[in-house]
């Protein structure tokens, strides 16, 4: 809502020096979101005057037609002589009154004006367009004024070019502030000044001879006021003051009848509609549409109506969508000038509609037809049903005043009875909500200021004013009191929060994982969870794979990516690709986030019950809500490309490899204090020979390794890109693990090395397991320090060299004891994996 201060001052006697910024500050404190103050004409400087065109000489020797005009500007130029002005516009004739800016003036821009040579003439100023004066930019031609203004009259004042306009973002609960009346009320309260309510005007009582109206749907329309005016001059134009106010309020002047309805809507917040009476066939009827019924609206669009749409009809059918937009058929006719006689024909009899429609109905219709009109905007937020009669009267008065019409005596006013809604509220509730003592007297006064009637002492019975349909609950009333007393005056206190227990184990674990992976050289990313079929294809994930069973979005941002991720890899690889594309060739990324998995085809999935809100849902209902949701487990994933160590003065580069991917998984497992078992596996999208399946006990928790070259190619990734993904929920399924302190033996360690030759197919993990089992309790640690293949041990075989460290808790081991344990370890390896000692 744009509110010109000059207009606002009509209803509130604000102090003379009060600026837009001052008023803005006051209104913001009272809860109006005043987003800005526009200073109109701030850099404008006269002389800017009314001129009368005396003569026009057409200059034809230029690329475009140019006019050299003599304009009478009265005494404004100090000489009284006509002013010579060159003008490129053509929408005026000799005798027209125009706006002339004289040398020495400054137009908005700022754009200083001086006499200048142009098109072979001296132009002593300019004839102005609306755009040049900062009045709006929808008209290209110059302004032609009504004939009644004398040449030389100051046009800055005449066109009200200097003003300030408040720009207010009206929240959903304050529909009444979509009007000067509402904003003036808030301003009056904020300044403690009286309000001149524009709706308090004399209105004749309803009678039976007004325009015929039938309301068939009283739930949708609980108020319908209709008035009529005859003898309207179709040639009459909106007066400048009205046009200017409409412009400043951000709308466009169109025609007198439309301007008047818009003006009254801006003033009182009541949307009005004007019909050409001759184009209405029979009684105006308010009813719901028949499904599929059609109507061509004012904007020229033919609309197919829904059975929920509320319509204004006559005997011929729909003539408007109630409260949203009128139909083209009953529009006020454009004035037509007969070129021979000069006679103007057009609408001469007008019916004014001022109705009140159900907000939800209007909101749904406006949304359905994508018609967020000024009228719909107001009805949705709530219009004062009691303002309808005054608004209709105001429109009638204006038609009489500026269009020469005559008001007919008939007044139609159809009112559906609606109960008075009173709210009972403890007088000290605002104090208790605010945490500050206002006292009953203040509470009552503030409620009365916003228009409530208040009775009672300890318990107040409060009836909100008709323009505040948002006031329904005791807390709504508290807000009124607290905001008017000033949110800025609230004290600052802290509640006594009961002792807390800090983060949960799962929350702490995610932190540990993040720190561990980042410390290991990985960079965290947070990717969008949206994926499409294309990336699953590229990864080579086959039909029937559960990762293909995605949760789908009805209205995705991109139709290429309409699903939610079932794995973290697409997002991670996308981010990897982006980094490489930007020249960061050595990248290790990780992400912690949820994936969305559909398990099976439970009928409850995606079908959440619609539960009431006037009570707590039952445990069963809560379970139904949860059953409608897909599983959303937490995962951690990582991807790697390029070098882990760059080439440097220390030596050759070291690439990120499958082993780093497995190591990242181990880093996560260590943070979770679980031990990870690694098994050889084949799992898409990993390289079939370089894929590790990761287990906790017998539970598969994820995979790591190098990606399949086909997937790498399809996604245009660097060669030998590696990846890891783990399900955190599965990883920690065993619950929090408490670290056990080891017994530290201070006896000396006995180290024994052993090199075992095994078949190439034998896995290092199996050899290690055998050695550990065979070595017994004296084994403190074991480490593989070399893998060797070569002729000396034969083809298809490898030698694994281990360092074994033995130590006892209670004594120094003898060489024999250590050797015995070593031999036992070797024997077990021989039994389990056919290992032989390398000779």
């Amino acid at each position, binding site marked *: 809502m744009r509110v010109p201060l000059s207009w606002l001052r009509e209803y509130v006697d604000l102090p003379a020096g009060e600026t837009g910024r001052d008023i803005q500050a006051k209104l913001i404190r009272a809860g109006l979101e005043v987003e800005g103050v526009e200073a109109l004409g701030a850099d404008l400087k006269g002389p800017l005057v009314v001129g009368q065109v005396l003569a026009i000489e057409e200059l034809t020797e230029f690329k475009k037609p140019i006019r050299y005009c003599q304009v009478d500007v009265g005494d404004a130029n100090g000489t009284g002589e006509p002013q010579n002005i060159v003008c490129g516009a053509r929408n005026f004739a000799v005798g027209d009154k125009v706006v002339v800016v004289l040398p020495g003036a400054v137009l908005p821009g700022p754009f200083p004006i001086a006499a200048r040579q142009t098109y072979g003439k001296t132009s002593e100023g300019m004839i102005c367009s609306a755009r040049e004066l900062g009045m709006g930019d929808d008209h290209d031609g110059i302004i032609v004024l009504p004939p009644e203004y004398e040449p030389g009259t100051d046009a800055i004042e005449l066109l009200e070019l200097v003003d300030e306009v408040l720009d207010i973002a009206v929240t959903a609960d304050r529909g009444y502030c979509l009007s000067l009346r509402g904003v003036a009320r808030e301003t009056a309260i904020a300044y403690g000044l009286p309000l001149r309510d524009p709706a308090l005007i004399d209105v004749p009582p309803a009678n039976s001879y007004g325009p015929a109206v039938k309301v068939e749907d009283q739930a949708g329309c609980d108020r319908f006021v209709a008035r009529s005016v005859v003898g309207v001059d179709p040639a009459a134009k909106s007066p400048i003051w009205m046009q200017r106010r409409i412009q400043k309020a951000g709308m466009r002047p169109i025609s007198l009848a439309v301007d008047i309805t818009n003006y009254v809507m801006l003033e009182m917040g009541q949307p009005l509609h004007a019909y050409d009476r001759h184009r209405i066939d029979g009684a105006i009827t308010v009813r719901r549409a028949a499904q599929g019924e059609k109507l061509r609206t004012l904007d020229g669009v033919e609309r197919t109506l829904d059975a929920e749409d509320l319509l204004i009809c006559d005997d011929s059918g729909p003539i408007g969508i109630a409260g949203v937009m009128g139909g083209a058929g009953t529009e006020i006719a454009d004035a037509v000038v007969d070129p021979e006689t000069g006679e103007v024909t057009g609408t001469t009899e007008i019916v004014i509609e001022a109705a009140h429609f159900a907000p939800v109905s209007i909101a749904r219709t406006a949304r359905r037809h994508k018609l967020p009109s000024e009228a719909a905007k107001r009805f949705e937020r709530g219009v004062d049903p009691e303002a309808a009669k005054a608004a209709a009267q105001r429109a009638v008065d204006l038609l009489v005043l500026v269009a020469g019409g005559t008001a007919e005596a008939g007044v139609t006013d159809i009112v559906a009875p609606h109960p008075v809604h009173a709210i009972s509220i403890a007088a000290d509730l605002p104090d208790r909500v605010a945490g500050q003592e206002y006292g009953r007297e203040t509470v009552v006064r503030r409620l009365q200021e916003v228009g409530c009637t208040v009775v009672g002492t300890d318990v107040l019975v409060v009836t909100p004013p008709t323009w505040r349909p948002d006031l329904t609950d005791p807390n709504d009333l508290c807000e009124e009191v607290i905001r008017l007393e000033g949110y800025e005056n609230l004290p600052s206190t802290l509640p006594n929060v009961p002792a807390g227990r800090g983060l949960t184990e799962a929350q702490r674990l995610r932190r540990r994982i*993040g720190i561990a992976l980042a410390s290991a050289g990985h960079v965290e990313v*947070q990717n969008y969870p949206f994926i499409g079929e294309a990336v699953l294809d590229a990864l080579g994930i086959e039909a029937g794979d559960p990762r293909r069973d995605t949760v789908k979005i009805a209205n995705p941002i991109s139709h290429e990516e309409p699903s939610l991720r079932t794995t973290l890899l697409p997002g991670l690889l996308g981010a990897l690709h982006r980094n490489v594309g930007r020249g960061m060739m050595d990248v290790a990324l990780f992400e912690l986030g*949820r994936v969305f998995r559909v398990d099976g085809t439970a009928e409850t999935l995606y079908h959440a019950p619609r539960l009431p809100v006037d009570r707590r849902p039952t445990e069963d209902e809560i379970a139904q*809500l949860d059953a409608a949701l897909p599983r959303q487990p937490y995962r951690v994933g990582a991807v790697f490309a390029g070098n882990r160590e760059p080439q*440097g003065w220390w030596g050759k580069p070291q690439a990120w490899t499958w082993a780093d991917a497995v190591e990242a998984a181990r880093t996560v497992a260590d943070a979770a204090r679980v031990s990870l078992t690694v098994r050889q596996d084949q799992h898409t999208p990993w390289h079939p020979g370089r894929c590790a399946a990761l287990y906790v006990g017998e539970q598969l928790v994820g995979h790591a390794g190098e990606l399949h070259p086909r997937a790498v190619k399809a996604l245009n990734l660097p060669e030998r890109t590696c990846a890891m993904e783990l399900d955190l929920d599965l990883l920690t399924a065993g619950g929090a693990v408490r670290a056990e302190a080891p017994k530290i033996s201070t006896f000396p360690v006995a180290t024994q090395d052993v090199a075992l030759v095994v078949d190439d197919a034998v896995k290092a993990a199996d050899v290690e397991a055998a050695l550990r089992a065979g070595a017994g309790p004296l084994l403190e640690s074991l480490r593989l320090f070399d893998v060797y293949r070569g002729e000396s041990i034969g083809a298809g075989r490898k030698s694994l060299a281990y360092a074994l460290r033995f130590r006892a808790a209670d004594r120094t081991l003898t060489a024999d004891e250590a050797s015995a344990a070593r031999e036992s370890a070797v024997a077990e390896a021989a039994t389990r994996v056919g290992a032989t000692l390398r000779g």
Partner: protein
Amino acid sequence: MSAPNKSYDPVEVEALKPEEIERLRDEALAAFAAATDLDALHEAKVAHMGDRSPLALANREIGALPPAAKAEAGKRVGAARGAVNKAFAARKVELEAERDARVLVEEAVDVTLPYDRAPRGGRHPLTTFAERLMDVFTAMGYSVAEGPEVEAEWLNFDALNMGPDHPARSTQDTFFLKDADSVVLRTHTSGVQIRSLLAASEPPVYVICPGRVFRSDELDATHTPVFNQVELLAVDEGLTMADLKGTLDHMVESLFGEGISTRLRPNYFPFTEPSAEMDMVCFVCRGESVGNPDRPCRTCSSEGWIELGGCGMVNPRVLVACGIDPNKYSGFAFGFGIERMLMFRHNVEDMRDIVEGDVRFTLPFGMEI
């Protein structure tokens, strides 16, 4: 060793003559002095102090002397050997110092060589910022509550007093699931607040709910369809707007420094009543840029205040939907976007930098923010 010989005079034994002992001593001292490195010194040591050195051999002769002569000869040889030992030790210290000085110089390196051998990692500032907020509130006694990102509409909307016709429940703002009834991508973490209230058999409930939320906006410099929120909910007996204000003040002081406070401006949200917009004093200019064109402030556009988000007293209707008696309990809540706070706290100019995962963006933020 030979037996004592009573008639034996040490002076008569060639090796034990005083001038001979002196000569041997002086030879040793000269050899040590002449040694120019530790190897040469070692050779000199073997020659003059070793088992077969003349002084050692002379020493051996003493045993054969008659007792009366032993003392004098022993004294003479002992003094000489002492002097030799001492000279050796001194020369060794000298030569070692020389060697150390030389070797350490030779071992010198260019310590300004660059070393970017180990890969550098970092955590995303959205993560660490949320953690920082969690730490502020867990320190106050709050718990951190989490919930699903795909959420039932009743939990995301209805229970929050956002009826079926609320404008936010349109495809303009909300992602809906295909072929689903009343299931959406959560538009805020408020569903977690509702879950917290439902899970508590009875207040008090003090929770903070961080998490990812979704709105159907296109990604641009200031919007993202997926973003992170932190919401707070406190429900207890006798909670007031003053408590809300105090909690906000505490939060911004914790995050932005001593003396930074908040202000509340009336606003409208369905789930709170009264509702407010919360601003904080600009932590950069502390308001000094207002009306001061010489000191413009980019962070607050010289407004002096930075908008944080929405807050208010929990609408009693929300409590009713969760089975909590609104006559006994009241609550306050607030919520804001972490991206926005990250942007103004760290001068992030483009939202896309936050969401695209460019490592250059994330690395400077390190492990904690």
